[in-house]
């Protein structure tokens, strides 16, 4: 038996989901990539386009809190989901992970940075005190060509500290 729930849901060529806390309905074909929906239909260009095959992580966003490559996610897969992009992280002021990257200089050109910050955020939500191996695993899908990752790893360390400080 083929479950057609998703297909029926998407048949109106409209995606209804929550993006950065706002309910959003956008008329797009169900197979349109989330990357393109965000950048081209919604003007959320903080999510970057780079390899488009899910290797580099520049387009990473959170879907129901889990990191996903927006270039590999189709509109219909986002139906009813909570999507958080880099723009959504700082709605209430700089997120501690963003603050950490800023302080440590965990970026240069900045093009990988939104995706990197999304991945670090997802990691620290899951695991506030990650081991080196867990950090490596969490960031293995995010490529950075500028920093050599030194500043990024220092930012992760700083983000761990800032996140702990923010806890009551």
């Amino acid at each position, binding site marked *: 038996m083929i479950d057609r729930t998703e297909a029926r849901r998407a048949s109106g060529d409209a995606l209804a989901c929550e993006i950065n806390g706002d309910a959003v309905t956008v008329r797009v074909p169900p197979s349109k990539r989330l990357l393109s929906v965000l950048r081209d239909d919604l003007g959320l260009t903080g999510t970057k*386009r780079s390899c488009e095959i899910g290797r580099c992580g520049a387009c990473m966003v959170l879907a129901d809190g889990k990191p996903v490559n927006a270039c590999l996610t189709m509109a219909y897969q986002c139906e009813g989901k909570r999507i958080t992009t880099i723009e959504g992280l700082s709605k209430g002021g700089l997120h501690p992970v963003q603050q950490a990257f800023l302080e440590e200089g965990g*970026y240069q*050109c900045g093009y990988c940075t939104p995706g990197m910050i999304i991945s670090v955020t997802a990691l620290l939500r899951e695991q506030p005190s990650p081991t*080196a191996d867990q950090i490596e695993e969490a960031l293995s899908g995010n490529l950075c060509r500028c920093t050599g990752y*030194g500043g990024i790893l220092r930012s992760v360390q700083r983000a761990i500290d800032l996140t702990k400080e923010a806890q009551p």
Partner: protein
Amino acid sequence: MLLNRTTSGSRWRTRPDGPGKVTGGLSYLTDLSLPGMLHGLVLRSPHPHAAIVSIDASKAMALPGVLAVLTYADVPGLNRFGIARPDQPVFCEDRVRYIGDAVAAVAAETPEIAVLALRAIEVAYEPLPVVDDPERALLPDSPLVHPEGNVLHRNDYRTADVAPGFAAAAHIVEETYVTPRQMHTYMETEGGLFVPEADGRLAVYSATQHGFMDRMQLARILGRPEADIRVVSSPIGGSFGGKDELNVQPYGALLALATGKPVKVHHSRWESVRAGLKRHPMKIRMKTGVDANGRLLAHEVEIVADKGPYATLGAEVLNFAVEHVIGPYRYDAVDVKSVNVYTNNGMSGEFRGFGGNQAIFALEGQMDRLADKLGMDPWAFRRLNLRKTDDAGPLGQPIAVTAGASQVWEALAESELWRSGTGRGSAGSGPGIGATGGKSAGHDGSGEEGIGLAAARVEAKTASDRGQATAGTPAPPWIRRGVGASFVMHGAGLGVGIPDPAGGRLRLAADGKIDAVFGYEEFGQGLIASLEQMLIEQFGFAAEDVRIVIGDTDVVPDSGSSTASRSTSMMWQSLRRLRGPFAGKLIAAASAALAMPADRLRVGAGGIRDADGGELLLPYAALAAATAKAPVIAETRFEFPRSPVDRVGAHFLYTYSAVAVAVEVNLLTGRVRVADQYHTVAAGPVVNPQGFLGQIEGGSGMALGFSLTEDAVMSGGHYLTENLDTYLIPTVAELGGTFEVEPIETLPEGDEYGPRGIGEVGSVGLAPAIASAVYRAVGKRVNRLPIDPALLQETDGWY
């Protein structure tokens, strides 16, 4: 003192472009869009070499939603581009010479229609023999890439006959080094927005490393005055030399003018790979002789570089390599021959390090091998032949005098990491290596028992330790650790014979901001952060007082290119020239406005302050209002300092660096893991600690890829690596070890040139240091990059 956030204290600053980068709020030029904009795509050749028989665009043009299909017939000006020599067709007329060659371009209402239109363009080709090997391309019977022959450029340099030196030599090392087709792999692919303005001008929003060069080239292609074109070129999501040459700009500009509408172009990764520049693959043969005491007698070099089809800066890269295969050493006789050869492979061109990476990998390999033959410590051997402070440059040219060479030599010799690998440091004896039957590779190196294997018996760290100390954990017997080192002397600036302008402008704007206006580009290196930091530290301004204006040909002066490790040092020199005039004018104007003597006033945070007490007397906004009729402005123009010789490409300012690296070779997999790194860099004062650290760390990351994983593999003129799933840049897993950067900031008294460039040097030294470390770990010499794991695999005898 090691450079890090702690040791930098208050000099560690948040970058002005940081908030926009961490929040995603910063718009890159590929993020721009306009209502009603069209989408541009370029049709590129499917063949590495073919004659074009016919092009029929009628079906594409007839598609609804297609507004323009352009070919060579639609180029109003010069149908060519190329910074140094315009020989690359904007659109090919009758022949394609690589699989990135452009044949047509379309503009359509949607990206989907643009794709359909590309498919509907009918081009008939007749394939031609593919020239894919630069050495074979030099043979008399080779097919020709260009009618005038397959040689773009030759450059020879000879100081004396090398034959007597070789005849007298106690040891001679002869080796051929091969380096890969490395890809820049900026995360933001090429692209931008091209906007016909109401007044008839064209606005180009697209990344480059020299806005005025793009404007000149576009004017030439479009057949219109430069003044009719505005190039906005920053911020940029990485470049590394790769966006120095035109890429999408001719197509976006032509399509925008043809349709009268804004056109967006943004390369897919595959289009970026096929069309874009790469590091020149080079084959470098070296023959070097020493006497019994280790003195270098003769050094003979032949370089063959794979240019691909068109010039761009291929001649200049080759010249740079010629200078850097000689490097920081003294020889009795040097004889270098070099050639850059046209092929139907991908385009090679400018890339961070600019030919130095290949040259120094080879040169340092020679030094290691010679030391080995002499039974000498490789670092001590380098000292024996190292240039003295007052020596001429590699090409015999006068250069700015610094003690950088000996400074970095000494710093490395004293570094903990290097000492740990020489038996004088922390080398311990791990169990198991001898007993498990892992064979020690028998090679010609006679010193390996004394140095290599002793170093290998360090208690190696396991891959999951991220290089953090794990005292007492013995490494598995198939992990061999070695520490290697290399020496780098790297030139900055464009060199003799090439226009190399510099300069900038300071202005008190009407709103009271101090505008610092420079024609440089921000591609991630931290240029605007460095400029802000210099303005604060040298003038006493507050960050809020300052507004950085760059990357827009309508408003900036031509400060020259943001290439060749030149822009930070040129900004420093500009501010040094502007400090007196600009501060003087501010104070003179304030003196008039306040009716106070000038010597009672000084420039400071927020405005003009009392010279003694420091209290704020006149905010900049008030001073701006007072000077509205005669705004305070100071401008400087000068040339990058150059050596007074007529040897094209010879440099005057150099940065020196020494690199030590610990590697772990896994004999079961043949894989090399870089554990710990130490980089010392003598480049004068550190302008921006965060930027400096980032440049050395980031450059080293690129060098790691160059050494271990990166190669844009081609076969018969076709790329086999089309995206980042097969082209492997380092991930966080490859770069987790400890990393120490030790700047040496002292310059000779009276030095006028200030900070030297550091944008490239970090990308150079790691590759030869890794090769050296691998040898000291397992006794095998590496002469080809990236290192083939099969070379290092020793799977026999473990079971």
